[in-house]
């Protein structure tokens, strides 16, 4: 007998048996091989949220991630509700010209008077005063601190505080979105005055607020646990739910698996391709809401000469069967849109030029623009140059990749070649911000205030803005700047309606569909309203109640 044909020794047999035992026990043995509730069901004692990322900071002014967790702790003077109306929160009222809260000044500026609710206190018991408003403005405008955005604050010249509950904010110029100026809340002066806020991690990781919840525990990489604040200023025993647990689950499949196994109860921003998996769940309902974002193909006129011709842009609109894409690729979850302001906004108008799917019309427009099929490739040419461009999109985003392929096919049918180029999300952001693309399939998350200047004004091309189509239309630019410089809501609306009509005529980009927001919540959850803005679904968490 040679060693290679020896029978296994008893030692080897024992080792093999041990292997089986160890493997099996490690997988299931410890669990006792029994079905059990891997987590408690949703209740007013605990609601578990499957969150797709860990916040970078809980300082609302510094974070660049959705503010769901922060919203539960830190409240603004106003908040946007589920219909995107700006409503008062810590302020008694939303200041307007009509109620005397907004006064235009002779020097071209304006004064906005904020009146705080009576009896407001920070979670540590200190009173919330107008000095906190002043401190917030000064801190954000201090060059030594680096908040995410200084938008609007940089237009404030000073703040005066006639009394502890009143702050008058003096603007150097008329600033239309003033009502959202303090939507991210206030910074507590008594905690942060004289400190380097970038380094104030005691506050940044455990902020002091006035909201219905406070931080109980932040286990880095795992979860954030919030607990109910006793004596929340709204009274009435609010909030109903005692603890909110935000679990960080970056992998989408894992998040959905946890939802199905009952380990999490709420999944905000459920990806569309997971809708079917969850839609029939007996315990979960998927809340659908029109979003304040839209999917679009931006056409870079600076890089692709053909895009400078409005006939080509209109032809691309007519050639795109957006309704088919919405029905098939998007499974009817997202309605087709015709412009940048979404139906959830008070400034929205549907009375704009529409471009129905009409390939014959697309071909005629391209012929008229001098782009004709001459060779055997089927691609249109003019002056020996083919009508061909790169269509950039995010890699690994299955729905977007499918939409890109559908558009590629539909445009190919009218003799236009779109070459799909995929990049990872971060790389893509730097490319579009530098205008380094021909056409870009992406989405725009619109601000809660319906400002379009940043996206379409002629002087707001990168790096000064987001006019990445490089559209230069003086009429539109004038309309947009005029809309920014009025606080008369009706006048502002009429200017924005005119701007939407002009954009629809010019077709600087190809709007595709609304980014419908899907949020998976327990069927037993009452008081849930949703929200299309960055405020997120937790803006009214104090009303949530598990039946």
């Amino acid at each position: 007998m040679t060693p290679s044909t020896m029978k296994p020794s008893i030692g080897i047999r024992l080792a093999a048996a041990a292997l089986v035992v160890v493997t099996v026990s490690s997988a299931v043995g410890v669990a006792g091989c029994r079905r059990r509730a891997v987590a408690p069901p949703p209740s007013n004692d605990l609601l578990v949220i499957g969150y797709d990322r860990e916040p970078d900071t809980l300082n609302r002014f510094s974070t660049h991630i959705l503010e769901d967790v922060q919203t539960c702790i830190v409240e603004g003077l106003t908040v946007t509700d589920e219909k995107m109306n700006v409503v008062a929160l810590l302020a008694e009222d939303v200041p307007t010209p009509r109620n005397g809260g907004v006064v235009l000044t002779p020097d071209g500026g304006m004064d906005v008077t904020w009146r705080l609710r009576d009896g407001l206190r920070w979670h540590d018991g200190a009173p919330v005063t107008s000095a906190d408003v002043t401190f917030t403005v000064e801190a954000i405008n201090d060059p030594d601190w680096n908040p995410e955005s200084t938008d609007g604050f940089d237009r404030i010249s000073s703040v005066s505080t006639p009394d502890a509950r009143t702050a008058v904010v003096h603007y150097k110029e008329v600033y239309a979105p003033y009502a959202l100026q303090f939507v991210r809340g206030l910074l507590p002066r008594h905690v942060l005055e004289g400190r380097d806020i970038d380094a104030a991690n005691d506050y940044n990781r455990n902020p002091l607020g006035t909201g219905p919840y406070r931080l109980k525990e932040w286990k880095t990489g795992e979860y954030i646990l919030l607990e109910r604040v006793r004596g929340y200023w709204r009274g009435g025993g609010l909030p109903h739910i005692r603890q909110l647990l935000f679990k960080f689950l970056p992998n989408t499949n894992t998040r959905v698996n946890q939802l199905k196994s009952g380990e999490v109860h709420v999944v905000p921003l459920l990806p569309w391709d997971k809708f079917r998996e969850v839609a029939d769940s007996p315990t979960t309902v998927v809340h659908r809401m029109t979003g304040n974002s839209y999917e679009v193909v931006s056409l870079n006129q600076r890089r692709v000469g053909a895009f400078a011709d409005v006939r080509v842009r209109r032809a691309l609109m007519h050639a795109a069967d957006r309704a088919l894409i919405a029905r098939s690729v998007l499974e009817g979850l997202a309605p087709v849109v015709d412009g940048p302001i979404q139906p959830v906004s008070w400034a929205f108008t549907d009375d704009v030029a529409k471009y129905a799917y009409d390939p014959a019309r697309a071909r005629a427009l391209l012929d008229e623009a001098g782009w004709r099929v001459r060779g055997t490739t089927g691609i249109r040419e003019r002056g020996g140059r083919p009508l061909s461009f790169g269509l950039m999109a995010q890699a690994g985003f299955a729905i977007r990749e499918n939409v890109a392929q559908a558009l590629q096919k539909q445009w190919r049918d009218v003799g236009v070649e779109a070459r799909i180029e995929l990049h990872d999300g971060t790389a893509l952001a730097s490319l579009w911000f530098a205008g380094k693309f021909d056409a870009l399939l992406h989405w725009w998350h619109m601000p809660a205030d319906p400002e379009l200047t940043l996206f379409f004004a002629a002087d707001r091309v990168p790096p000064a803005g987001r006019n990445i189509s490089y559209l230069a239309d003086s009429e539109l630019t004038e309309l947009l700047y005029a809309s920014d410089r009025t606080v008369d809501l009706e006048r502002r609306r009429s200017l924005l309606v005119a701007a939407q009509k002009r954009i629809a005529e010019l077709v600087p980009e190809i709007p595709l569909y609304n980014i419908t927001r899907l949020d998976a919540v327990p069927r037993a959850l009452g008081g849930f309203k949703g929200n299309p803005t960055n405020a997120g679904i937790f803006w009214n968490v104090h009303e949530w109640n598990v039946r």
Partner: protein
Amino acid sequence: MIGRVVWRVAQAFPLLVIVSIAGFALIHAAPGGPLDIYLSNPNVRPEDIARLKRSLGLDQPVWLQYFTWLGGLARGEWGYSFTDGRPVVERFAERVPATLELVAVSLLLAALAAVPAGVYAAVQRGTWVDRAATGIAMAGISLPVFWFGLVLQLIFAVGLGWLPSAGRATPGDGGLVDRIEHLALPASVLALVQAAAWSRYLRASMIDVLAQPFMLAAQARGVGRPRLVWRHGVRNAVGPMLTVVLLDAAMLVSGAVVTESIFAWPGLGSLFTEALARRDYSVLMAFLMASSALVVVLNLVADLCLMRLDPRTAEP
């Protein structure tokens, strides 16, 4: 032996400097940067981007950024995370225990599986046992980790409800049983992949050893089978595998990226994924340097272990 260790450590320094230059250049050459994540927020103006860029020093030439970083490293300062502004060392330190826990358990499981499987397959070469072990090992090597992990989640968490699908512990619990339950799925996935590969190495190595004349001589001297296989066979066969095991350990410690991501395991792999997505340069460089140093150290440890197992390798 001490001289050899000192020499190897001295050799490692220029190597690590070269790695740092190459890594720094590659990370900065990749499209995108730490501020790109801000671009999707319409309230962040281009003026804000320019301001933030200045504050993080990203407006400086890359070579200057490198020397600033290297100078900090020489003083023992790993810098601050571009994501949350906390010290990189602090972000690392809070992730290390979870990774060590996962890696230690999975390596142990893998070794417990691989050694008997590899030895058994070699001793029983050509039989159905060998073929079955080969089939299982091939499956283990071929199965995509992300897919296998999700399948285990679906079976054991969603379907059977026996185990939690992700996370390291139940908030508010964290007892031993709870920890083991959370560890079971990710550790099994990692262990299967490692065990599959190691069992193949060991089988091949063992077959070579079994054919050596000294094995026949030992058998002729009347050495019993268990002693023949384990003392004479495995001891000689396990040497080449040791280097592989230790290098695999270094790779796992520096990031079982996919497994940690799928199972929301709060270790270094998850941190790396997050840092990569956000182009958190300081965290990524710390990763690169720490994992390079770990590879160097574990390579050295492997050599020292080999010297102990087979003194012939210690000869110059």
